[in-house]
Every structure is written in C-alpha cells, then in structure tokens.
C-alpha cells in the first residue's frame, strides 16, 4: 500500500443496526404491554377512572397509523420525485419555478386547514388525512429531488451524453444514483414529519395513534395523551433510525468521498 493515509482505521462506532433495534424494541413493548405501566400512568392521573387507553388495541392503532403514513409517503415519493425529474429535463424546464413554488405552498398551508377544507369534499375518515399528509410532505421530497439532480456535475452529464448514453440511461445509471442520498434525505424528513402530523387524523375520524391524544384532551386525561405521544415518538424514532441505516448503506455503496 503506497498511501498510508488510506489505511487509517475509521473511528469506532456503534453498529449501524443498534438504534433501529433499540427504538423498534421499545415501540413494540409500548404497543403490546402498555398496561404493564399502569402504576406510572396512575401516578400521572390519580383521580381518573381509567388510566390505560382501551377503546382500541395499541397495535391496531399503530397499524392504521403506519398505513396512513405509508400510503401518503408512497404517493408523495412517486409524485414528488417524478415532478422533480420532469422539470429538470430539457423539455420540462419551463415548469421548474412553478413546481418549486407549488411544493413550498403545500408546506406553508397548515395541515389542520387542509383537513378542514378536505372534510366537506372527501367526508370524514382516512382520505382527508392522507391528502393533508401528501401536501404537507411534498416539499422536502420535491426540493431534495431538485437539489440532488441539479448538483450532479455538468462534466459528468456531458460525459454520459458524449459516450452515447440515452437520456433515460443517463438518468437511471448516472443522475439518480448520484442524487439518491439527497433524495433519500428528503423522503426521511417528509416521512418523519408526517408520522407526527398523522395524529391529526383522529380529529376527522381516521382512527390511529392520534386517538388516545385527542381522547385524552377531550376527557382531560393526561395519561392517554402521554400514551399516544410516547408511541408516536417511538415510531418516529424507529423509522428515522431505519432511514439513517439506509442512508449510510447507500453512501457506502456509492462510495462518495
């Protein structure tokens, strides 16, 4: 080895899968064994008749919560990334400013207001919250897709073009892989925000981990609120740490300097 610097050992780190495992385990524990913590919640609400939320099982609420966030994320990723790709192509470049502004608008519009406007049109239930989450989560994905694609070195794109790659091949083998870490960071932000925002769905009849919180507020039972908030926080931490793992893996696979 001619270069002794390149063999320097990296700093010792906790294994990559440690945090997803820790947060995931705590999340699982909280949804299956919330009642075991009854003394704790009793201490928070000594006078309440009931201190453990029991109108639905926590794992059912967790499942519904994940479903709502998942569907919204899927649609947002497909729409946001496609829009980002479309406006960075030569033909779509006229729409670049428009798409950027629309995405920003989506995030400046408060999700509560979106819910209020969506319910009369879509009715109560899961649909309004999915729409609200989509609008709210669009900005980070569109913005990062644009940033990632625009950051690909012009020399690299010229070379791809000049070597005889078709535009589709350039996009698939050069631009998207190079932009992937930035796009993934946008998806991570979007999904993590929406895990918390999805709790609002409980106000329009979409049953999820927001239920205990809303119910706790309505009935003046702080123990319920804590249970809902705790589970949502653990879910957000689990998902966020999974994204961290994914990003690291991607980075090492792309071996960027």
């Amino acid at each position: 080895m001619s270069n002794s610097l390149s063999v320097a050992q990296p700093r010792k780190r906790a294994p990559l899968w440690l945090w997803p495992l820790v947060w995931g385990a705590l999340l699982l524990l909280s949804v299956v064994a919330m009642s075991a913590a009854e003394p704790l919640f009793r201490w928070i609400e000594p006078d309440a008749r009931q201190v453990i939320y029991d109108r639905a099982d926590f794992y059912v609420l967790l499942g519904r919560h994940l479903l709502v966030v998942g569907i919204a994320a899927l649609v947002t990723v497909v729409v946001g990334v496609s829009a980002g790709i479309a406006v960075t192509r030569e033909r779509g470049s006229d729409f670049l400013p428009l798409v950027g502004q629309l995405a920003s608008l989506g995030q400046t519009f408060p999700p509560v207001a979106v819910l209020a406007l969506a319910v009369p049109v879509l009715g109560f239930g899961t649909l309004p919250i999915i729409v609200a989450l989509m609008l709210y989560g669009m900005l980070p994905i569109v913005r990062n897709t644009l940033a990632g694609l625009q950051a690909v070195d012009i020399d690299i794109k010229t070379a791809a073009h000049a070597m005889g790659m078709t535009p589709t091949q350039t996009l698939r083998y050069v631009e998207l892989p190079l932009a992937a870490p930035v796009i993934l960071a946008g998806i991570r932000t979007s999904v993590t925000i929406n895990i918390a925002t999805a709790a609002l769905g409980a106000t329009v009849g979409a049953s999820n981990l927001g239920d205990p919180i809303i119910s706790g507020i309505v009935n003046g039972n702080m123990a319920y609120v804590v249970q809902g908030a705790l589970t949502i926080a653990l879910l957000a931490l689990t998902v966020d740490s999974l994204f961290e793992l994914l990003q690291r893996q991607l980075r090492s696979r792309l071996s960027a300097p």
Partner: protein
Amino acid sequence: MIELSHVSKRFGEETAVDDISLRVPKGKFCALVGTSGCGKSTTLRMINRLIEHSEGDIILDGQAIEVYDPVKLRRRIGYVIQHTGLFPHWNVARNIGLVPRLLKWSAADVQGRVEELMDLLGLPVGEFAHKYPHQLSGGQAQRVGVARALAADPDILLMDEPFGALDPITREKLQDELAKLQARLHKTVVFVTHDMDEALKLADHLVVMREGRIVQQGSPLALLQQPADSFVESLLGGLERGLKQAALTRVKDHMTSMGPTLPAQSRIPADFSLRQALSMMLRDHSDRLTVVDQHDVPIGELSLRRIIKEAQLDKGSARE
C-alpha cells in the same frame, strides 16, 4: 476522415463558429488552438453532435453527420474532457467498460478489453480496477478518461483540453504517452487546447482559431516558418519561435557525415531534437556535436554553422 466545409454555429444573435472549413485525414492528429471563447470547443462538439451546427456540412467517413443516429454516432467516437467526467459512483474498470457495455458486448469481452486498455495506459489492473475516481490522482484519472474513450476502439477521438487541469510535469508525461499511443493506434484525432506548445508537440495539422474563425492552418513547421499575422505569431511565442521550430526538428535531419576533423567532445543521439542539440552546444561551449545512433556509435556530425545555413535556405524556400 473528418471534413468540415463552411460550417457555422449561431447561438441566437451570437456567432460562435463562423464559416470554417477543415479536413482531418484518417489517422491524422489535428489540433485546434486559440484563446478561450474562440469557438474551438464548439467546433469539437459539433463533430459528435453534442451541439448541432447551424450551417455548412460536416462529413464523417463520406456521410453527412445528420444521417447518423446521434446516440450511435457518439458510441463510435471517443471523447475526452478536461475534468474527465468519470462517474464517481463507478470504479475504474466499470468506467472504462461503459461504451462496450452500451454496445452490448459480452461481459467477458468487456472485461478483456478493459484489462487490455488498462495495460496500454499503464494502470496495473490489480491496483486500479477497483479504485474509485476520487482515489485517483489527476493524471491517473485522465488516463482512465482516455481509456474510456478508446474502449470500443473508435476510429475517431475528440479531446477537449484533456490535460488542461494537470500539473506541468504530469501534463508533459501524458502528452508523451499520447504521442506514443497515437504512433501505435493511428486514430483520427481532433484535439482542442489553448497551449500552443502542446499543439506543436502533438499535432500533424494545426488550426489556429480566433473569434469563431480559422486564422491559419497547416503543419506545425509551416506555421512556425510563416505565421499569417501577428496574432498567430504571438500565440507561437514571438521570439521563442526559433527554439520551438528547433524542438520539432530531429538532429538526424541536419547532420552531415563525419568530417575529416577530430570528432567533437559532446555526443547526441540522432533522434533528439535540434533544440536539445542547441542547448547542449550552449552548455558545452561548442559549436559542433558528434551524432551517435542508439548504440552510442558515432554516425555523423552536427555543426551550428550548418544548422543556421539550412535555416536560411528553408526560409528562402518557404517564401517562394
């Protein structure tokens, strides 16, 4: 063969390339030289249709380039750029094998070709095949760039200031290697540079451009002997011109057979340049050198008087 006749390129109001005509015969090395913004890179990019020309004809191997499918055309033309444009997420072997893979060669053929090229460019396969571009020095990266351009064995090679970003020592080394490579491979090369010395060293045919027009073209020696105007003359180095011309001339073209006088003290190999011979004369305070072959056997003599006399004759004949 590449032939441009009356080619122009306009970007809106602005004319980047203005009515240029030039011919690069098969296997020849043509250098486009000029200051930045003179249209030399635009000219290069019109040949592989990265930029479409506005007027005139560009003929490749007897066919107008509009006839070719642009993607297929580019796959049969090698292209090297200044900052290499290597894909940072691909290792060296994968970068080099790009065009063969686009042409759907079998994996074994691609691998064979990649190893052959790495050998050719002095990049040991074991050491470099799995390195990534950011792990390479500037010179190594540009070798990979050249290997990538040569991968599918194209007849034509376009090079856009390929050595412009390298330090002088690495640049000179790569120029020497490119000259050797060209002597072996006989590609039809169009090479863009703003470095006149580089152009003089490598080119068979030199094209000087200014503000989108060709000011003068011809062999390097012809340009050195008779620059068309003061612009070409200044590009050629003004007062240094004499030495640049000497650098392009071999000792063996000016030597005489051994005279009756005693052999001179200093010896110079016959394939060295006249510039090196002059430098040696200055160093050794001598106006005569003994010319030797590769086995260090004296085969002739070089005298300052004769060099100057022949230069006068050349000048006379060039005027006619």
